[in-house]
Protein backbone atom coordinates (compact mmCIF):
# COMPACT_ATOMS: atom_id res chain seq x y z
CA UNK A 1 0.00 0.00 0.00
CA UNK A 2 0.99 3.64 -0.21
CA UNK A 3 1.32 5.21 3.29
CA UNK A 4 1.27 8.98 3.78
CA UNK A 5 5.00 9.16 4.59
CA UNK A 6 5.80 7.65 1.16
CA UNK A 7 3.64 10.24 -0.61
CA UNK A 8 5.38 13.01 1.36
CA UNK A 9 8.89 11.62 0.68
CA UNK A 10 8.21 11.51 -3.05
CA UNK A 11 6.70 15.01 -2.93
CA UNK A 12 9.60 16.57 -1.00
CA UNK A 13 12.25 14.89 -3.18
CA UNK A 14 10.49 15.95 -6.38
CA UNK A 15 10.16 19.52 -5.13
CA UNK A 16 13.90 19.57 -4.35
CA UNK A 17 14.66 18.72 -8.02
CA UNK A 18 12.32 21.50 -9.13
CA UNK A 19 13.56 24.22 -6.85
CA UNK A 20 17.32 23.55 -7.23
CA UNK A 21 17.57 25.31 -10.60
CA UNK A 22 15.69 28.51 -9.65
CA UNK A 23 17.68 28.76 -6.38
CA UNK A 24 21.17 27.78 -7.62
CA UNK A 25 20.90 28.60 -11.33
CA UNK A 26 23.48 31.37 -11.23
CA UNK A 27 26.13 29.48 -9.30
CA UNK A 28 25.96 26.01 -10.79
CA UNK A 29 25.57 24.34 -14.18
CA UNK A 30 24.77 20.71 -14.98
CA UNK A 31 27.04 18.85 -17.37
CA UNK A 32 25.62 17.64 -20.68
CA UNK A 33 26.64 14.12 -19.68
CA UNK A 34 24.42 14.29 -16.57
CA UNK A 35 21.48 15.82 -18.49
CA UNK A 36 21.71 13.02 -21.05
CA UNK A 37 21.87 10.32 -18.37
CA UNK A 38 18.85 11.74 -16.50
CA UNK A 39 16.78 11.82 -19.69
CA UNK A 40 17.72 8.25 -20.61
CA UNK A 41 17.11 7.06 -17.03
CA UNK A 42 13.52 8.32 -17.21
CA UNK A 43 12.88 6.40 -20.44
CA UNK A 44 14.58 3.26 -19.07
CA UNK A 45 12.36 3.23 -15.97
CA UNK A 46 9.16 3.84 -17.93
CA UNK A 47 9.91 1.05 -20.41
CA UNK A 48 10.81 -1.31 -17.54
CA UNK A 49 7.46 -0.47 -15.92
CA UNK A 50 5.69 -1.22 -19.20
CA UNK A 51 7.50 -4.56 -19.59
CA UNK A 52 7.04 -5.79 -16.03
CA UNK A 53 3.51 -4.40 -15.85
CA UNK A 54 2.54 -6.13 -19.09
CA UNK A 55 4.26 -9.49 -18.57
CA UNK A 56 4.40 -10.20 -14.85
CA UNK A 57 2.03 -10.58 -11.94
CA UNK A 58 3.68 -11.06 -8.56
CA UNK A 59 6.71 -13.23 -9.31
CA UNK A 60 5.24 -15.04 -12.30
CA UNK A 61 3.82 -14.62 -15.79
CA UNK A 62 0.68 -12.50 -16.05
CA UNK A 63 -0.94 -14.69 -18.71
CA UNK A 64 -1.40 -13.87 -22.39
CA UNK A 65 -4.42 -11.55 -22.29
CA UNK A 66 -2.63 -8.58 -20.70
CA UNK A 67 0.57 -8.47 -22.81
CA UNK A 68 -1.47 -8.87 -26.00
CA UNK A 69 -3.67 -5.93 -24.96
CA UNK A 70 -0.59 -3.82 -24.25
CA UNK A 71 0.86 -4.82 -27.62
CA UNK A 72 -2.34 -3.69 -29.35
CA UNK A 73 -2.09 -0.37 -27.50
CA UNK A 74 1.59 -0.04 -28.43
CA UNK A 75 0.93 -0.57 -32.14
CA UNK A 76 -1.87 2.03 -32.06
CA UNK A 77 0.34 4.53 -30.20
CA UNK A 78 3.12 3.94 -32.70
CA UNK A 79 0.65 4.61 -35.55
CA UNK A 80 -0.21 7.87 -33.72
CA UNK A 81 -3.75 6.94 -32.78
CA UNK A 82 -5.39 9.35 -30.30
CA UNK A 83 -4.53 8.68 -26.65
CA UNK A 84 -8.04 7.60 -25.51
CA UNK A 85 -8.26 5.14 -28.42
CA UNK A 86 -4.88 3.65 -27.46
CA UNK A 87 -5.87 3.01 -23.85
CA UNK A 88 -9.42 1.82 -24.54
CA UNK A 89 -8.28 -0.53 -27.33
CA UNK A 90 -5.61 -2.05 -25.08
CA UNK A 91 -8.05 -2.69 -22.26
CA UNK A 92 -10.75 -3.92 -24.65
CA UNK A 93 -8.40 -6.42 -26.33
CA UNK A 94 -7.44 -7.84 -22.94
CA UNK A 95 -11.08 -8.00 -21.81
CA UNK A 96 -12.10 -9.71 -25.06
CA UNK A 97 -9.36 -12.35 -24.76
CA UNK A 98 -10.46 -13.10 -21.19
CA UNK A 99 -14.06 -13.37 -22.34
CA UNK A 100 -12.85 -16.00 -24.84
CA UNK A 101 -11.17 -17.90 -22.02
CA UNK A 102 -7.55 -16.77 -22.56
CA UNK A 103 -5.92 -16.17 -19.17
Amino acid at each position, binding site marked *: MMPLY*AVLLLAVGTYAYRVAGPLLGRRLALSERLRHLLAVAAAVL*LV*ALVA*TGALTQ*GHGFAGWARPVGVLV*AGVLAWR*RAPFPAV*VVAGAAATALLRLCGVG
Partner: protein
Amino acid sequence: MDMRSLLRTLEHATLRDIALVCLADALVGASFGAISVSGGLPLWVPIALSVLVFAGGSQFAAVGVVLSGGGALAAVATGLVLNARLLPFGFAVADVLQGPWWQRLLGAQLLTDESAAFAIQQRDPRQRRAAFWICGIALFVVWNAAVVLGALAGGLIGNTDAVGLDAAFPAVLLALVLPSLADRRTRTAALVGAVAAVAVTPFVPAGLPVLLALVGLLFAGRPEAGESAGSAESPESAEPAEFAAVDVVAVKEGVR
Protein backbone atom coordinates in the same frame (compact mmCIF):
# COMPACT_ATOMS: atom_id res chain seq x y z
CA MET B 1 1.35 39.05 -11.27
CA ASP B 2 -1.65 39.82 -13.42
CA MET B 3 -3.18 36.85 -15.20
CA ARG B 4 -4.85 38.95 -17.91
CA SER B 5 -1.65 40.68 -18.93
CA LEU B 6 0.10 37.30 -18.98
CA LEU B 7 -2.59 35.99 -21.36
CA ARG B 8 -2.22 39.03 -23.63
CA THR B 9 1.55 38.49 -23.80
CA LEU B 10 1.24 35.13 -25.57
CA GLU B 11 0.30 34.47 -29.18
CA HIS B 12 -3.00 32.76 -29.91
CA ALA B 13 -1.28 29.71 -31.37
CA THR B 14 0.70 29.18 -28.16
CA LEU B 15 -2.43 29.49 -26.03
CA ARG B 16 -4.19 26.97 -28.25
CA ASP B 17 -1.26 24.54 -27.96
CA ILE B 18 -1.29 24.89 -24.18
CA ALA B 19 -5.03 24.17 -24.14
CA LEU B 20 -4.51 21.05 -26.27
CA VAL B 21 -1.78 19.77 -23.97
CA CYS B 22 -4.05 20.39 -20.96
CA LEU B 23 -6.82 18.40 -22.64
CA ALA B 24 -4.49 15.48 -23.35
CA ASP B 25 -3.13 15.54 -19.81
CA ALA B 26 -6.67 15.59 -18.45
CA LEU B 27 -7.23 12.20 -20.09
CA VAL B 28 -3.99 10.87 -18.63
CA GLY B 29 -4.93 12.24 -15.20
CA ALA B 30 -8.40 10.70 -15.33
CA SER B 31 -6.87 7.32 -16.22
CA PHE B 32 -4.44 7.72 -13.33
CA GLY B 33 -7.23 8.35 -10.84
CA ALA B 34 -9.36 5.52 -12.19
CA ILE B 35 -6.53 2.96 -12.33
CA SER B 36 -5.29 3.81 -8.81
CA VAL B 37 -8.67 3.52 -7.12
CA SER B 38 -9.90 0.52 -9.11
CA GLY B 39 -6.58 -1.16 -8.29
CA GLY B 40 -7.45 -0.92 -4.61
CA LEU B 41 -5.82 2.28 -3.34
CA PRO B 42 -7.90 4.61 -1.15
CA LEU B 43 -9.25 7.77 -2.82
CA TRP B 44 -6.84 10.12 -1.02
CA VAL B 45 -3.69 8.50 -2.44
CA PRO B 46 -4.04 9.50 -6.12
CA ILE B 47 -5.35 12.93 -5.09
CA ALA B 48 -2.51 13.63 -2.63
CA LEU B 49 0.06 12.39 -5.15
CA SER B 50 -1.37 14.64 -7.84
CA VAL B 51 -1.39 17.82 -5.74
CA LEU B 52 1.89 17.26 -3.88
CA VAL B 53 4.04 15.41 -6.43
CA PHE B 54 2.34 16.76 -9.60
CA ALA B 55 4.42 14.70 -12.06
CA GLY B 56 2.33 12.21 -13.99
CA GLY B 57 4.99 9.67 -14.95
CA SER B 58 6.25 9.26 -11.39
CA GLN B 59 2.70 9.09 -10.03
CA PHE B 60 1.94 6.21 -12.39
CA ALA B 61 5.27 4.60 -11.57
CA ALA B 62 4.82 4.79 -7.79
CA VAL B 63 1.26 3.46 -7.94
CA GLY B 64 2.34 0.75 -10.40
CA VAL B 65 5.08 -0.48 -8.08
CA VAL B 66 2.72 -0.54 -5.10
CA LEU B 67 -0.14 -2.24 -6.98
CA SER B 68 2.22 -4.96 -8.20
CA GLY B 69 3.07 -5.74 -4.59
CA GLY B 70 6.22 -3.65 -4.19
CA GLY B 71 7.16 -1.79 -1.03
CA ALA B 72 6.45 1.89 -0.46
CA LEU B 73 10.16 2.76 -0.43
CA ALA B 74 10.73 1.05 -3.79
CA ALA B 75 7.82 3.13 -5.12
CA VAL B 76 9.41 6.33 -3.78
CA ALA B 77 12.84 5.43 -5.19
CA THR B 78 11.40 4.70 -8.64
CA GLY B 79 9.47 7.97 -8.65
CA LEU B 80 12.51 9.95 -7.55
CA VAL B 81 14.80 8.51 -10.25
CA LEU B 82 12.09 9.21 -12.81
CA ASN B 83 11.66 12.81 -11.65
CA ALA B 84 15.40 13.54 -11.65
CA ARG B 85 14.90 14.85 -15.19
CA LEU B 86 13.14 17.86 -13.64
CA LEU B 87 16.52 18.97 -12.28
CA PRO B 88 17.93 20.12 -15.66
CA PHE B 89 14.54 21.65 -16.53
CA GLY B 90 14.78 23.77 -13.38
CA PHE B 91 18.14 25.12 -14.48
CA ALA B 92 16.83 25.78 -18.00
CA VAL B 93 13.91 27.91 -16.81
CA ALA B 94 15.69 29.50 -13.83
CA ASP B 95 15.50 32.91 -15.55
CA VAL B 96 11.70 32.63 -15.70
CA LEU B 97 11.49 32.10 -11.97
CA GLN B 98 13.14 35.27 -10.77
CA GLY B 99 11.16 37.64 -8.57
CA PRO B 100 9.88 37.59 -4.99
CA TRP B 101 10.90 34.45 -3.05
CA TRP B 102 7.32 33.26 -2.66
CA GLN B 103 6.81 33.41 -6.44
CA ARG B 104 9.96 31.39 -6.98
CA LEU B 105 8.92 28.72 -4.48
CA LEU B 106 5.37 28.58 -5.82
CA GLY B 107 6.53 28.56 -9.45
CA ALA B 108 8.91 25.67 -8.80
CA GLN B 109 5.95 23.40 -7.99
CA LEU B 110 4.50 24.25 -11.46
CA LEU B 111 7.64 23.00 -13.22
CA THR B 112 6.74 20.06 -15.47
CA ASP B 113 7.98 18.67 -18.79
CA GLU B 114 5.22 20.67 -20.45
CA SER B 115 5.63 24.05 -18.75
CA ALA B 116 9.41 23.91 -19.26
CA ALA B 117 8.98 23.01 -22.94
CA PHE B 118 6.54 25.88 -23.57
CA ALA B 119 8.76 28.36 -21.74
CA ILE B 120 11.88 27.35 -23.66
CA GLN B 121 10.09 27.66 -27.02
CA GLN B 122 9.55 31.40 -26.45
CA ARG B 123 12.28 33.90 -27.35
CA ASP B 124 11.26 37.05 -25.49
CA PRO B 125 11.79 36.94 -21.69
CA ARG B 126 8.27 38.27 -21.02
CA GLN B 127 6.77 35.60 -23.24
CA ARG B 128 8.89 32.87 -21.62
CA ARG B 129 7.55 33.95 -18.26
CA ALA B 130 3.96 34.12 -19.47
CA ALA B 131 4.16 30.72 -21.16
CA PHE B 132 5.60 29.10 -18.04
CA TRP B 133 3.03 30.51 -15.63
CA ILE B 134 -0.02 30.05 -17.85
CA CYS B 135 0.89 26.47 -18.80
CA GLY B 136 1.87 25.66 -15.20
CA ILE B 137 -1.28 27.02 -13.58
CA ALA B 138 -3.63 25.63 -16.23
CA LEU B 139 -2.05 22.18 -16.01
CA PHE B 140 -2.14 22.16 -12.22
CA VAL B 141 -5.87 22.93 -12.16
CA VAL B 142 -6.83 20.63 -15.04
CA TRP B 143 -4.62 17.73 -13.90
CA ASN B 144 -5.92 17.67 -10.34
CA ALA B 145 -9.56 18.07 -11.35
CA ALA B 146 -9.20 15.21 -13.83
CA VAL B 147 -7.54 12.95 -11.25
CA VAL B 148 -10.39 13.53 -8.77
CA LEU B 149 -13.04 12.79 -11.42
CA GLY B 150 -11.16 9.70 -12.60
CA ALA B 151 -10.69 8.44 -9.04
CA LEU B 152 -14.41 8.83 -8.32
CA ALA B 153 -15.25 6.97 -11.54
CA GLY B 154 -12.68 4.26 -10.77
CA GLY B 155 -14.53 3.46 -7.55
CA LEU B 156 -17.58 2.49 -9.59
CA ILE B 157 -15.83 -0.22 -11.62
CA GLY B 158 -16.50 -3.65 -10.14
CA ASN B 159 -14.35 -6.42 -11.64
CA THR B 160 -11.35 -4.54 -13.04
CA ASP B 161 -9.69 -7.59 -14.62
CA ALA B 162 -12.83 -8.42 -16.60
CA VAL B 163 -12.72 -5.01 -18.32
CA GLY B 164 -8.96 -5.25 -18.92
CA LEU B 165 -8.00 -2.31 -16.71
CA ASP B 166 -4.75 -4.04 -15.72
CA ALA B 167 -3.64 -3.64 -19.35
CA ALA B 168 -4.54 0.07 -19.32
CA PHE B 169 -1.70 0.95 -16.94
CA PRO B 170 1.19 -0.32 -19.09
CA ALA B 171 -0.67 0.96 -22.16
CA VAL B 172 -0.74 4.52 -20.80
CA LEU B 173 2.96 4.43 -19.93
CA LEU B 174 3.85 2.99 -23.33
CA ALA B 175 1.98 5.80 -25.10
CA LEU B 176 3.82 8.34 -22.96
CA VAL B 177 7.34 6.94 -23.42
CA LEU B 178 7.16 5.99 -27.11
CA PRO B 179 8.25 9.40 -28.50
CA SER B 180 11.48 9.41 -26.47
CA LEU B 181 12.41 6.03 -27.94
CA ALA B 182 13.05 7.66 -31.32
CA ASP B 183 16.63 8.11 -30.11
CA ARG B 184 18.63 4.93 -30.79
CA ARG B 185 20.79 4.97 -27.64
CA THR B 186 17.76 5.62 -25.43
CA ARG B 187 16.01 2.70 -27.13
CA THR B 188 18.95 0.33 -26.56
CA ALA B 189 19.27 1.33 -22.91
CA ALA B 190 15.52 0.93 -22.38
CA LEU B 191 15.41 -2.49 -24.05
CA VAL B 192 18.34 -3.84 -22.03
CA GLY B 193 16.74 -2.47 -18.87
CA ALA B 194 13.34 -3.98 -19.65
CA VAL B 195 14.81 -7.44 -20.35
CA ALA B 196 16.80 -7.28 -17.11
CA ALA B 197 13.73 -6.20 -15.12
CA VAL B 198 11.54 -9.02 -16.44
CA ALA B 199 14.33 -11.58 -16.04
CA VAL B 200 14.89 -10.85 -12.34
CA THR B 201 11.18 -10.55 -11.45
CA PRO B 202 10.81 -14.18 -10.26
CA PHE B 203 13.79 -13.88 -7.92
CA VAL B 204 13.78 -10.47 -6.23
CA PRO B 205 11.20 -8.61 -4.08
CA ALA B 206 8.51 -6.73 -6.03
CA GLY B 207 9.43 -3.14 -6.85
CA LEU B 208 13.14 -3.92 -7.23
CA PRO B 209 13.08 -5.19 -10.86
CA VAL B 210 12.17 -1.74 -12.22
CA LEU B 211 15.06 -0.11 -10.32
CA LEU B 212 17.47 -2.84 -11.51
CA ALA B 213 16.49 -1.87 -15.07
CA LEU B 214 18.84 1.09 -14.61
CA VAL B 215 21.72 -1.25 -15.63
CA GLY B 216 20.47 -0.30 -19.10
CA LEU B 217 22.12 3.08 -18.52
CA LEU B 218 25.47 1.37 -19.26
CA PHE B 219 24.26 1.47 -22.87
CA ALA B 220 23.14 5.10 -22.78
CA GLY B 221 26.30 6.26 -24.56
CA ARG B 222 27.50 9.83 -24.49
CA PRO B 223 25.57 12.92 -25.54
CA GLU B 224 25.83 13.57 -29.26
CA ALA B 225 28.83 15.56 -30.51
CA GLY B 226 26.83 18.76 -30.88
CA GLU B 227 25.39 18.52 -27.38
CA SER B 228 28.64 17.71 -25.59
CA ALA B 229 30.50 20.71 -27.03
CA GLY B 230 29.77 22.99 -24.09
CA SER B 231 29.86 20.82 -21.00
CA ALA B 232 30.48 23.85 -18.80
CA GLU B 233 27.96 26.09 -20.50
CA SER B 234 25.79 28.53 -18.61
CA PRO B 235 22.21 27.59 -17.77
CA GLU B 236 20.89 30.38 -20.03
CA SER B 237 22.26 28.79 -23.18
CA ALA B 238 21.33 25.27 -22.11
CA GLU B 239 18.84 23.51 -24.39
CA PRO B 240 17.36 20.47 -22.69
CA ALA B 241 14.12 20.97 -24.55
CA GLU B 242 14.76 18.19 -27.04
CA PHE B 243 12.87 15.46 -25.23
CA ALA B 244 10.34 17.69 -23.51
CA ALA B 245 9.41 19.24 -26.83
CA VAL B 246 9.05 15.78 -28.33
CA ASP B 247 6.70 14.84 -25.50
CA VAL B 248 4.55 17.92 -26.02
CA VAL B 249 4.33 17.32 -29.75
CA ALA B 250 3.34 13.70 -29.12
CA VAL B 251 0.71 14.75 -26.61
CA LYS B 252 -0.72 17.26 -29.04
CA GLU B 253 -0.86 14.68 -31.80
CA GLY B 254 -2.53 12.33 -29.41
CA VAL B 255 -5.45 14.73 -29.04
CA ARG B 256 -6.09 15.08 -32.74
